[in-house]
């Protein structure tokens, strides 16, 4: 046989195999003979229930509720009673046409979403009539159901995955809901579950006839795991109430674990605004509010100069470096003087004071000297500054906490090279950066870092990375990052001396009006200067002094001084958490009702006039 004949033979046999196979599937076998006129297979995605979110006490914060997406296949749409259709869904006729056109533009033959997230109640009446509207069918969605109007910044919300997100995550499809912020975002993988798919045979009227091939290709959805987050919703709500009509934030931690007990940012918003058909409109409304910034989580993102609470860090560094002892005294003469440099002080003392008193009186002069002596211990200011900076950073400042909160800021702790660059020469002195001594200057911290600082002092020298998660799917946390204490570079023996001083702050110092009769508290007030307007009111505290269960940091923006707003609010929060009730009704009332709205209004007007002068605003007649 010639080889060319083998080719003929080869071609013929393949052709025969193909024709035989075609005969088998097209003529002999009935299984493939789905009359496509009457039956089409529809792929329905079954969304899993998203995991529930509970608080630390087991109270449900976020659950689920069903909703429905109305789908349309434009080619299958026949003449229908538009009036009835629109009435049932409460949309206008123009809107109906617009939506249908949009679906047609997407694809004439593929299903598109016609109307999103119709509530269960509304859909019930529509579903009865669904058979009158060929080409339309529904797909069940699961929406969030918020049990509290609080903690929106903590739990976060979900929304449709963006195109950019989809490109990076192939396991998601267009239209899938994902966590956008908060716990929903950090624990997306856990909460999400796995969607299932069901193939259904439907007739021309879109009635489901049977499952396709007995569900051979179906997959069951796998619901997401429930999680317990560490916040105490009672405390969170109380804090939000105390902060109403004030801007700022409260962060409360459990020092012995690093768990976040409350994370309050004010102003806040109702998480329920972030679900359903109105979501986009509501979101945009919150998003464009550039004055109140309700979507901005101040507890994690706002950076402030820490002010006086930072003095305790300087004291600790001084003790560790040996440049400060219990017996060291400085005498304040209305401030710190060095050549022409003058840092004012309102501590009101004119006698030599020691460490303990310096904390309760918050003496600026004392801490300028403490800072100066730390820096000057070293042959050059650079070396001193770098040593100081290293100590400060060991307190978790000036760096990301690297935790499970989806957002955060680094803050700022300067070092020698920063000043080299900023002064442009290298022979600067300790006094050049003297405002670091009193927590001003270039220093920036976020409220959660400040709360962590408070926890470090409560623990006498170490912290657990603050985190929001307590339990996932019934199993307690095992992440080493949260379970291992992180030590500061200051020995724990020095902390006791600082705690004594902070105890005095409540007993006879700047926060004596916020003292509680039966709970021993320790704290430090702060009044942070702020280039944009009135000073911020700052307070860090923990209680009870000997076995701390709560450490807290509070910043009330433009709240004048620390003891005016921040200290009483902190004191009330700690009482609430430790005793479950409030004994000081008068103070509570003052805080609940107090408002800084006038102050904010005034600032806004000032800013407006400034801009007007600078020609930045077009004032039209």
């Amino acid at each position: 046989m010639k080889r060319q004949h083998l080719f003929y033979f080869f071609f013929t046999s393949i052709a025969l195999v193909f024709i035989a196979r075609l005969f088998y599937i097209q003529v002999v076998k009935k299984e493939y003979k789905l009359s496509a006129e009457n039956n089409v297979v529809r792929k329905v995605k079954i969304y899993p229930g998203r995991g529930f979110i509970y608080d630390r006490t087991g109270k449900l914060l976020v659950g689920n509720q069903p909703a429905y997406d109305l789908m349309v296949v434009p080619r299958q749409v026949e003449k229908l009673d538009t009036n009835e259709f629109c009435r049932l869904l409460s949309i206008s006729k123009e809107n109906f046409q617009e939506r249908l056109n949009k679906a047609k533009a997407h694809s004439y033959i593929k299903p598109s979403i016609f109307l999103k997230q119709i509530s269960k109640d509304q859909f019930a009446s529509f579903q009865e009539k669904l058979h009158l509207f060929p080409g339309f069918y529904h797909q069940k969605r699961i929406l969030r159901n918020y049990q509290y109007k609080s903690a929106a910044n903590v739990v976060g919300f979900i929304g449709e995955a963006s195109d950019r997100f989809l490109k990076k995550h192939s396991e998601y499809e267009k239209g899938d809901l994902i966590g956008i912020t908060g716990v929903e975002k950090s624990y997306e993988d856990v909460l999400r579950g796995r969607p299932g798919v069901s193939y259904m045979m439907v007739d021309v009227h879109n009635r489901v006839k049977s499952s396709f091939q007995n569900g051979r290709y179906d997959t069951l959805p796998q619901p997401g795991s429930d999680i317990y987050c560490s916040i105490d919703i009672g405390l969170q709500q109380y804090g939000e109430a105390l902060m109403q009509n004030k801007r700022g934030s409260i962060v409360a931690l459990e020092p012995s674990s690093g768990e976040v007990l409350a994370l309050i940012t004010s102003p806040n918003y109702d998480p329920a605004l972030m679900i359903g058909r109105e979501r986009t409109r509501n979101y945009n409304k919150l998003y464009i509010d550039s004055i109140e910034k309700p979507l901005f989580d101040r507890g994690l993102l706002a950076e402030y100069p820490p002010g006086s609470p930072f003095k305790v860090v300087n004291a600790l560094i001084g003790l560790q470096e040996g440049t400060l002892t219990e017996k060291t005294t400085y005498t304040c003469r209305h401030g710190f003087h060095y050549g022409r440099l003058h840092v004012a002080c309102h501590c009101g003392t004119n006698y030599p004071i020691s460490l303990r008193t310096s904390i309760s009186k918050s003496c600026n002069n004392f801490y300028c000297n403490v800072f100066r002596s730390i820096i000057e211990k070293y042959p050059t200011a650079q070396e001193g500054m770098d040593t100081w900076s290293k100590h400060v950073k060991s307190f978790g400042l000036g760096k990301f906490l690297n935790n499970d909160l989806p957002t955060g800021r680094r803050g700022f702790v300067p070092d020698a090279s920063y000043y080299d660059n900023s002064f442009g020469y290298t022979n600067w002195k300790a006094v050049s950066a003297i405002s670091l001594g009193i927590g001003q200057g270039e220093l920036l911290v976020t409220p959660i870092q400040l709360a962590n600082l408070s926890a470090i002092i409560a623990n006498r020298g170490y912290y657990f990375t603050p985190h929001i998660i307590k339990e996932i799917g019934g199993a307690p946390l095992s992440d080493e990052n949260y379970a291992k204490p992180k030590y500061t570079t200051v020995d724990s023996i020095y902390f006791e001396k600082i705690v004594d001083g902070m105890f005095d702050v409540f007993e006879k110092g700047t926060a004596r009006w916020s003292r509680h009769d039966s709970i021993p508290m320790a704290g430090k007030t702060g009044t942070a200067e702020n280039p944009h307007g009135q000073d911020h009111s700052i307070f860090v505290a923990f209680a009870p002094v000997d076995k701390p269960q709560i450490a807290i940091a509070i910043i009330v923006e433009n709240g004048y001084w620390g003891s005016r707003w921040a200290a009483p609010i902190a004191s009330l929060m700690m009482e609430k958490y430790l005793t479950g009730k409030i004994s000081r009704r008068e103070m509570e009332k003052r805080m609940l009702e107090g408002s800084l709205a006038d102050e904010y209004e005034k600032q806004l007007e000032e800013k407006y006039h400034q801009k007007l002068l600078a020609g930045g605003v077009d004032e039209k007649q």
Partner: protein
Amino acid sequence: MRNSNSIFQNLDWFSIFLFALLVLMGWANIYAAVYNEEFNSIFDTTQKYGKQMLWIATATIIIAVILFIDGSLFQTLAYPLYILSIISLILVLFLGKEIAGARSWFAFGGFSLQPSEFAKFATALALARYLSTKNISLKSWRTKFTALLIIFLPSLLIVPQPDPGSALVYSSLLLVLFREGLSGSYIFFGFGLVVLFVLSLLVDKLYLIIILASLAALTIILTLRIKNFYWSVLAILLVAVAFIQSVDYAFYNVLEDRHRDRINILLGKEYDPKGIGYNTNQSMIAIGSGGLTGKGYLQGTQTKYDFVPEQSTDFIFCTVGEEWGFAGSSVIILLFIVLFFRLVQLAERQKSAFSRIYGYGVVSIFFFHFAINIAMTIGLAPVIGIPLPFFSYGGSSLWGFTILLFIFIKLDAYRMQIL
């Protein structure tokens, strides 16, 4: 000087007729696959059928150019074209545009070219040029090696795009070597490797090796009389065992997940929770629902409702099956086979070895595409994305196939001028 009219003389009008028929039927099917009532102008270039019309029109220009070129030029240009193709295949890996996860296209504004489609004819030309060189014999190892290098160099460059389907196409050129005198035992050996490949995926490695070893032992006992034959048997056994070992590696490291899944499903090895078998199943439903005579042109619903993926490219045969039924699909298959027969005939009547070898290259490439593509739509082969010649939507593939075929038609027409 030749009379310019003569370019239409000696052309094999029968093949050209088959070509035109298949291209037009292909277009009609693309129209059917994409068709909907909203957009129905056939020249609407926003739709696939409109674009395909454009490709067909430009393909006729390419045909005209090829027919005007002097027939001897192809032999001269064989190597330069091959080198150009290799360069373009290397460049596309770096400069190519990524579409659906594969870096296979050069994008020029709104329009993209797939160099692997053009490398096919260049490779066929180069192989023909090499094997038609005087004093070349496939008996020498050196020739075999060089021929294999010419064939598989483009293939190796296409694998990382990744586009295993197109890379596999080059193996069809082994048929050319067979025609040119390569011992049939090599083809047999290759076939054996494929069987071994499938078996090693299906059967536990250890059992397979034990079975092979016992087979080898048996052969040795039976052929003890033949001197030194057992050495060959042992060598084959050794190669087989090494191959089985390397299949595992290749399967899990070279192939992509999607290809692995498809092969696994075809072998019935893997339960299909992700619905990967869905493609093949939908394709078979579409074809199966066509019945004996089909649902009629533009009446198909399985394909129209997008149940079949890639229905205008790799799964175009579904539309044929659904709308034209068993009768129509068989006719298409026969048309292809008739074209292949004719091309083999033409190849055999060539005076020059170059033309003959090229002709076999053409027919082998077409046949491979045809066989794998249709086999995959009717569930006989894994889903490997290669187009059905002339039918599938796509400019690069249509141009590539047209050039492939018409260079041969030109060479055939030119045969009389070779002394």
